[in-house]
């Protein structure tokens, strides 16, 4: 039998409020995205997405989204080599609902399951899309804020948030200001920030390569309360501007420290917050000064999606990795450095 020349995987992601399903094709030299669909659960202004509502959203849309993903990819279940799904980290109920659906596909089609770490999915997809070979990775989203570099078969965490994620800080501040959650609270903060002019003083919390955002959020919330009470001379736009300038300066600083530490001049930004243009711009200026460059992807890949799960899962699968169904439980806590990265040198 001739060696296998192509592999197809379907990836199912639902660790937060996005349900994503994608189909990917690998050949020894190329990676092709056959389909990459997403359905987002948007909660009303002033509210966040609750686990049970989000899980219900994923359950009700999974079948139709999976059907459309296959149809768009022009692939039948028989062509699929493995079913990849997010094992963690993320919110429990949404993760579980997608894991159940992935197990069902696996049993229905008689294809092996591959559990994927969500963070590793982001990193691998970012590397694939941008061609960044061995960058320092800043992974920033609603649930995670980490500075990561690869060494000896693992993605090592050099710095991370000590409390909430940066995206969570932005999302919750959007709730305070009662900004719309459509398409995403962070996007709407970014638009308001473009009209802000005044830098209001907020705490700046960097400790070595780690940082903290909860105090900044508390402080911004207090300023917003002053403003709503008519006791302040700054606007919501100014607050959004100040919040962005402060938290992004922190992220760029810890990234720069990690780059100096490992001696790298490339930086890759992944995760939902990575689609913020101001963050990309600041990161670009920093990297240029260090004689390097920044790699970023657009919203199709930055924001949670199924294709990254399919891609990272398929890389592991091609090294012989599968997840037996009795071990296919998911977990809210799944550190990036727990994954043995067999597919890299």
């Amino acid at each position: 039998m001739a060696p296998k020349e192509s592999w197809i995987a379907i990836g199912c992601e639902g660790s937060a409020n996005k349900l994503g399903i994608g189909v990917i094709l690998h050949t020894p030299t190329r990676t092709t995205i056959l389909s990459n669909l997403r359905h987002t659960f948007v909660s009303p202004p002033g509210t966040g997405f609750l686990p049970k509502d989000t899980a219900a959203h994923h359950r009700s849309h999974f079948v139709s989204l999976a059907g459309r993903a296959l149809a768009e990819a022009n692939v039948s279940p028989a062509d699929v080599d493995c079913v990849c799904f997010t094992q963690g980290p993320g919110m429990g109920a949404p993760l579980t609902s997608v894991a159940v659906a992935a197990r069902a596909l696996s049993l229905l089609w008689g294809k092996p399951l591959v559990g994927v770490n969500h963070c590793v999915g982001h990193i691998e997809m970012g590397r694939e899309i941008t061609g960044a070979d061995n960058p320092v990775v800043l992974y920033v989203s609603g649930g995670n804020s980490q500075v990561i570099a690869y060494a000896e078969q693992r993605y090592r965490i050099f710095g991370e948030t000590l409390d909430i994620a940066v995206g969570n800080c932005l999302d919750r501040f959007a709730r305070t200001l009662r900004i719309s959650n459509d398409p995403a609270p962070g996007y709407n903060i970014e638009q308001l920030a473009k009209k802000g002019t005044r830098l209001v003083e907020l705490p700046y919390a960097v400790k070595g390569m780690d940082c903290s955002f909860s105090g900044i959020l508390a402080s911004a919330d207090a300023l917003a309360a002053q403003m709503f009470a008519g006791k302040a001379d700054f606007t919501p736009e100014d607050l959004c501007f100040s919040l962005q300038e402060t938290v992004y300066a922190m992220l760029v600083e810890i990234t720069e420290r990690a780059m100096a530490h490992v001696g790298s001049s490339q930086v890759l930004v992944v995760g939902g917050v990575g689609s913020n243009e101001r963050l990309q711009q600041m990161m670009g200026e920093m990297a240029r000064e260090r004689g390097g460059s920044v790699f970023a992807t657009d919203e199709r890949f930055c924001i949670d999606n199924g294709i990254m799960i399919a891609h990272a899962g398929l890389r592991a699968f091609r090294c012989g990795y599968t997840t037996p169904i009795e071990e296919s439980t998911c977990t809210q806590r799944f550190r990036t450095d727990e994954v043995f990265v067999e597919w890299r040198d």
Partner: protein
Amino acid sequence: MAAAAVAEAASEPPQQHQFPLPAVLEYPASTPPYLITQGAEGRLYKSTYLQPDIPCALKYRPPKPWRHPILDQRLTKHRILSEAKVLAKCRRDGLRVPAMYAMDEAAGWMMLEWVHGAPVRVRVNERLGDRKEGIDKDEGLKELMRRIGLAVGKMHKIGIVHGDLTTSNMILSPSAESVTDGQLDGTPGSLEGEIVIIDLGLASYSTTDEDRAVDLYVLERAFTSTHPRAESIFDELLKGYKEAYKQSNLALKRLEDVRMRGRKRSMLG
């Protein structure tokens, strides 16, 4: 000694500067600055203070153009003033750290005493050479470890945590009597001299056992990854630590917890 310092300052090869110099280093009268390192935080130059025979270290934090200028100014000022405060506190309480000569927090620089000697990392590695055995019986090295412990213990006792303890951030500075033939930096392999803790840019005031334990844990991790063959003698350092800092038992107990969990907690979703 002064003649040696002049000779030494003059002996640095002239440099082409890749980065713009802070104005303070561009006075025609100042000794040509020599760039020692370029870190994430800023740049370290060697120059002279007032007279050509007084070498000094100039720490310069250049503006970061990607930061909002107001925020950038605030952070630079804050960090220089806080480092200066920590240095003053250490010297007041008798812990050997570099003296502060001058600063301009708005321009982003501070000028410090140039501490002669070599980083502890270099001296330890020279001493270890390519030996694989007998390291835990090297009394000279064990004694050095205790002296490091004494310095760290004293720092914690006066309420300062360093934030970035490594064997590169300590200088083994030879005593004046031992300096012969203008060998201000001491002789390779020699473990004689005083421990001077440097680079307190991330240091802060703290008297919590958690912060002290994390400080020790960072040092332990840095030591064992920099000098893996000498891992077995790290306990000597803790002996010196206990000696200098009588209430250290709580911090050391906390160190056990920190070792178990690592510096990082397990990740929240």
